[in-house]
């Protein structure tokens, strides 16, 4: 493999990692910090993407579409919080699983009914739409570089928010003992609502910026949700730093795994056998990574301090 190829794979891996981070960050906030399992988080990613496409169609301006989509995604999240989720905070995790699964079913279907089953596509904003020449044969998209930079910025901000501000502390406190936070004079419900909306908005944001690279289609968030769970578990639930590192790790392992495992197998296996086993192994790579990490560090790479059970 040439060095440019390797460089491209690295960039791709990081870019995938960044997207995963944006989704996983919201998940780790809502689940790891607040203690609420929200399977509908992946749907929020999808909604972000659809809304962006929709508003783009109306305004013809990517920036405006992004902004409107974020606001709309936030509004939807707050509505869901109000109508469904807030009644489930002090329930069993499994109740949350069932209810949010219901939300997934509904929204996936609703999106299909509204926008149809065909994948939709959209272009990035004009000034970032171009490509730059990487090798004689290959151009690389500026938008992807932009995604990487956006992701790193958001990661920094989030880390500060969760670990350095009182809001972060209160949310973490509320996750273990909401009653006590209330008894000490803090409106934990409202706080949860804000965090929830924020997390959902992050997922929507990920959907918005992913829309120009991937296609927008019903159910696009389901698989990513599982990967996002893999990320937060590897990173250590509730840790923003861990999530960020794990997201990059998963992004890289997935990307590099796909491009190298089959080749490596071909070194000592029949090509046909390698073609048989390689892709299967590449699909398993992130799961193997997760199983290995959890085997040696059951709490993940960066367990949030003092977290029990």
């Amino acid at each position, binding site marked *: *493999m*040439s060095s*440019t*190829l390797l460089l*491209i*794979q690295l960039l*791709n891996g990081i*870019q*995938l990692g960044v997207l995963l981070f944006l989704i996983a960050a919201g998940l780790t906030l809502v689940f790891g910090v607040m203690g609420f399992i929200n399977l509908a988080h992946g749907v929020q990613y999808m909604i972000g993407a659809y809304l962006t496409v929709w508003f783009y169609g109306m305004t013809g301006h990517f920036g405006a579409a992004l902004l409107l989509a974020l606001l709309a995604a936030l509004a939807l999240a707050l509505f869901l919080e109000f109508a469904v989720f807030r009644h489930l905070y002090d329930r069993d995790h499994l109740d949350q699983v069932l209810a949010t699964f219901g939300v997934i079913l509904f929204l*996936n279907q609703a999106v*299909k009914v509204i926008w*149809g*089953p*065909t*994948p*939709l*596509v959209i272009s990035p904003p004009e000034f970032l739409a171009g*490509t730059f*020449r990487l*090798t004689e*044969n*290959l*151009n*690389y*998209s500026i938008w*992807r570089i932009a995604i990487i930079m956006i992701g790193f910025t958001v990661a920094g901000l989030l880390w500060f928010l969760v670990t350095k501000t009182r809001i972060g502390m209160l949310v973490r406190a509320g996750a273990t003992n909401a009653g006590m936070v209330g008894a000490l004079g803090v409106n934990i419900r409202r706080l949860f609502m804000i965090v929830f909306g924020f997390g959902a908005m992050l997922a929507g944001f990920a959907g918005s910026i992913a829309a120009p*690279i*991937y*296609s927008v*289609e*019903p*159910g696009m968030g389901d*698989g990513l949700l599982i990967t996002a769970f893999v990320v937060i578990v590897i990173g250590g639930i509730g840790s923003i730093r861990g999530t960020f590192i794990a997201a990059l790790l998963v992004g890289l392992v997935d*990307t590099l795994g*796909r*491009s190298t495992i*089959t080749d490596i197998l071909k070194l000592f296996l029949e090509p046909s056998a390698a*073609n048989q086993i*390689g*892709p*299967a192994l*590449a*699909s398993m790579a992130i799961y193997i990574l997760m199983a290995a990490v959890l085997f040696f560090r059951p709490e993940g790479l960066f367990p949030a301090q003092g977290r029990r059970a």
Partner: protein
Amino acid sequence: KDTLKVGMIVTLSGPPGALGNQARDGFQLALEEMGGKLGGMETEFILEDDELKADVAQSKARSLVEREEVDFVVGTIFSNMLAAIYKPVIQSGAFLISPNAGPSTFAGKNCHENFFVTSYQNNQNFEVLGKIATDKEYRKVFMLAPNYQAGKDAMAGFKQNYKGEIADEIFTPLGHKDFSAEIARIADAEADALFIFMPGGMGVRFVKQFRASGLADKMAFLSAFTVDETTLPAQKDDAVGMNGATNWAPDLDNEQTAAFTAAFEEKYGYIPGGYAMQAYDSAKLIDSAVTKAGGVGDKDAVRAALEAADFTSLRGDFSFNNNHYPVQDFYLLEVVKRDDGKYHTSIVEKVFDDYADSYADACKL
């Protein structure tokens, strides 16, 4: 018995639902044109969604044959769904007509007298592409397909007629999102042509990313099920000029196709693709058979009439092989933009005349 019951099982849910929608619309158009009657009999049409889940498909199939007691089941779009419904439908004695899926599994040893395919044997499109690659003297081809059974068949099918050098063959996961890694390898390999099979949303994403990479201008693009009427509304300009190969295109030069395409667009507002065409033909096939057999009372008569395939196919030339898979012509296609801004595939040239599949010998029918 004076009404005919036809059940259809296609995928309507999720992104692959676009394919099922075409099949549904194609069949219903035919039915409507014939005044709601097939073979002169008042026809009850029952539509089911397999949701691309084997157990759902099977349950729907059983509901059709056991509860509704339909005479014909038309389905499915995907091979794995066909595998799931095959046995219950066949066992019930109803006729199973596949408007799209044509797996090798049921073409050879496991063929059945009551099973008919109006599309093609799955490998054929790929074999056609292999022939094209050889004809055009591409020396080095890069191959890309998703890692599932149809993807593996695609690779094998292409290689059957292509004897040049293979730069590399890559399997991506099903539903793959980001092809940039693969595209980087394609760029690195410096091949003459790309052979690709990426159905549905994967194709949409790939074409877009491939176009952005600048590679589209540097190498030939030979595809199956990657740029077609279900994906073009999303791919738009990015796909223009890209090649595919199959048994039909909406601008095939014959009367019935011109009429069909116009009527279809008029009614549903989009351009029909192969899925719609094959479903339309399936309806016509049933119509011809029921007419000829004078009802569905005599199964053997109906079967013989089906085998005769006495109807005007949109493809023109059409007949069944001994295994009930079609013998038909195949074409090289290219994506074009129409004056009204819509996109469709267009016939470039005929590659095969009366092409039959390679499994028929093993079928004892």
